[in-house]
């Protein structure tokens, strides 16, 4: 993976409709997507991720701002002039063509020779393991196979960037897992920049080199999956990705790269990074799996009343109410020797692991 920028999005806004009916789908979005990376746009439906993808593909044009591909502005080029291909959510395979004809369509439109088209189509069929079904009609193959054909069709013209619009959402769980691995393999083999749209946070974390979390037309945070999960910048990101406990805390001391905080229980705790606050109060997030239960009152950061114990195979979840009325979840991994040590109705101390406290910007 090189560090050169593939797709650069500069202050792009997209407004649909006019005047009173105007809907802002994207609000001043800026992003740099690097060459050869697997980049994911993650967010709930209606957050603008698909609109952004359609702007890069050329099906829509930005209201403000511009999009560059390898340093050249492409915002106003029609889709057929952009070296960018799309794998559609519904696959959008041509029903009047065979599998091979579908895959060869883009090459034919590019004016490639018959021999070159045939050989590339063969190569693509091998790449997605569909050689046996080349002459089938697209309605005679399964959903997973259609998915592969859609991928092969979009990869055949060797685009600079491949756009994938929730391509796995129509597949069942097992097939989806398989295709996730398949997609990563294809991306490694081809070295093409993938821009992947999904609302599935787990999928985004597993597959991406980097991801952008979006909400209400804005990009909230961009980073590697580990970075986003461990250090969510704002409440929405912390809440949308994984499970999180939210607490209020008071500022004690701010240093250059660490902040000392006072928890509602009165106990001190330190967090990474310098916090900013106007009234001396901040919101913090703590992941449930980075906490444990203890009987040792001195070691405990918080104390609460266990309402519920939920056993889920690999983990056990303890639903706890803190003295201030806030709910808090502690998740511990089950080991061979762990019994039912804690029961509902008991009072327990909560230990927060070092580095587990994340200060939120909002």
């Amino acid at each position, binding site marked *: 993976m090189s560090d050169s920028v593939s797709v650069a999005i500069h202050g792009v806004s997209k407004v649909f409709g006019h005047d009173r009916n105007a809907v802002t789908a994207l609000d001043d979005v800026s992003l740099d997507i690097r060459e050869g990376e697997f980049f994911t746009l993650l967010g709930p439906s209606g957050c603008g991720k698909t609109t952004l993808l359609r702007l890069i*593909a*050329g*099906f829509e044009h930005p209201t403000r701002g511009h999009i560059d591909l390898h340093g050249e502005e492409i915002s106003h080029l*029609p*889709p*057929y002039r952009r070296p*960018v*291909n*799309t794998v*559609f959510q*519904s696959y*959008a*395979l*041509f*029903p*009047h063509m*065979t599998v091979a004809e579908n895959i060869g*369509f*883009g090459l034919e*439109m*590019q004016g490639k020779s018959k021999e070159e088209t045939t050989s590339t189509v063969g190569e693509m069929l091998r790449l997605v393991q569909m050689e046996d079904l080349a*002459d*089938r*009609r697209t309605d005679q193959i399964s959903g997973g196979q259609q998915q592969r054909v859609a991928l092969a*069709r*979009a990869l055949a*013209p060797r685009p600079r960037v491949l756009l994938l619009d929730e391509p796995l959402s129509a597949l069942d769980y097992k097939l989806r897992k398989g295709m996730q691995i398949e997609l990563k393999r294809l991306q490694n083999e081809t070295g093409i920049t993938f821009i992947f749209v999904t609302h599935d946070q787990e999928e985004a974390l597993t597959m991406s080199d980097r991801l952008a979390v979006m909400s209400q037309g804005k990009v909230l945070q961009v980073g590697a999956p580990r970075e986003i999960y461990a250090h969510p910048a704002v409440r929405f990101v912390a809440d949308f990705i994984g499970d999180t406990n939210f607490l209020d805390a008071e500022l004690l001391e701010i240093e250059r790269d660490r902040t000392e905080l006072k928890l509602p229980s009165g106990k001190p705790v330190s967090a990474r990074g310098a916090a900013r606050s106007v009234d001396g109060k901040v919101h913090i997030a703590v992941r449930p799996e980075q906490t444990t239960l203890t009987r040792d009152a001195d070691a405990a950061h918080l104390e609460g009343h266990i309402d519920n114990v939920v056993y889920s195979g690999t983990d056990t979840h303890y639903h706890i109410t803190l003295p201030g009325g806030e709910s808090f979840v502690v998740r511990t991994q089950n080991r061979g020797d762990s019994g039912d040590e804690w029961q509902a109705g008991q009072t327990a101390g909560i230990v927060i692991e070092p580095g587990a406290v994340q200060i939120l910007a909002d």
Partner: protein
Amino acid sequence: MADNSQRNDSVFEAAAHRARVRRNWLLSTPALIILVLAASGPLLVMLAYSFLQAGDYGGVEYRFSTEGWFQVFLARDIFDDTVSVADAHLSIFWRSARLSFLTTVTALALGFPTAYFIATRPRSSRNLWLFLVTVPFWTNLLIRTFAIMEVIKNQGIVNTLLMSAGVISEPIQMLYTDFAIMLGMTYVYLPLMILPVYASMEKLDFRLVEAGYDLYATRIKVLWRVIIPLVKPGIVAGCILVFIPSLGAYVTPRVLGGGRNLMIGNLIELQFGQGSNWPLGAALSIFLLLVVMVALLLYVRNSQKANNIVRH
């Protein structure tokens, strides 16, 4: 156990299916009665008449004769009984085929963009546009045809406008020409092209159009390679719906062709009216029917073959 219940299910399903089939036949009885009484019955009468002898003052005499069919293609000299090809009939057949073909092509050229326009409107306004397409059906065909006459006659709107604008100094003879017939037929049958093409177009998944653009196809390429193949059933239905009635058109060529430019419909009418040759009229009608049926059969066989090639 599981097998057993599955077998039971399929037995019940088969019984339910048979009940459905019975009910469907029952529901179609009125349609079947109308078809037999109003379509097949009269056709059989016509078929019988075409093999009878012409009565002196119209009607038929109940004696077997192939004279009607003979006269469809051949003419017998009144003086010396020499047989020659019926040139008059052949030129009428040719005009009918040519004008119907041109009408179909023109209607397609006008109807396809119209259907595309309607199909790409927001769902809420599509019904209004479709409604507007059907408005001409509210007025009698004859009156609409006379209206066209007013537009294209020598002192009509078009010629008057062109002359006052100084484009031409003498009126262009449009009325009573083949052009007038074609114009009239295109006008009358255009909705029959728009509606089926629209019906296909409305079902078109426009994401396929986007996929085409995405894969480097320009607008023209997308039209030819994606849109037209996918709405082909509608185009074919529209062409059949325009071509067949054009071939048998009667009112339009009668009014706009001025009785000089006959089409098959007028020729048939002539045999039952002034010509007093019912067997010939009946034979011509059956002949027209056969031509249309053979053409349709050929088309159906062809399209099945094309499907099989893709299907394997």
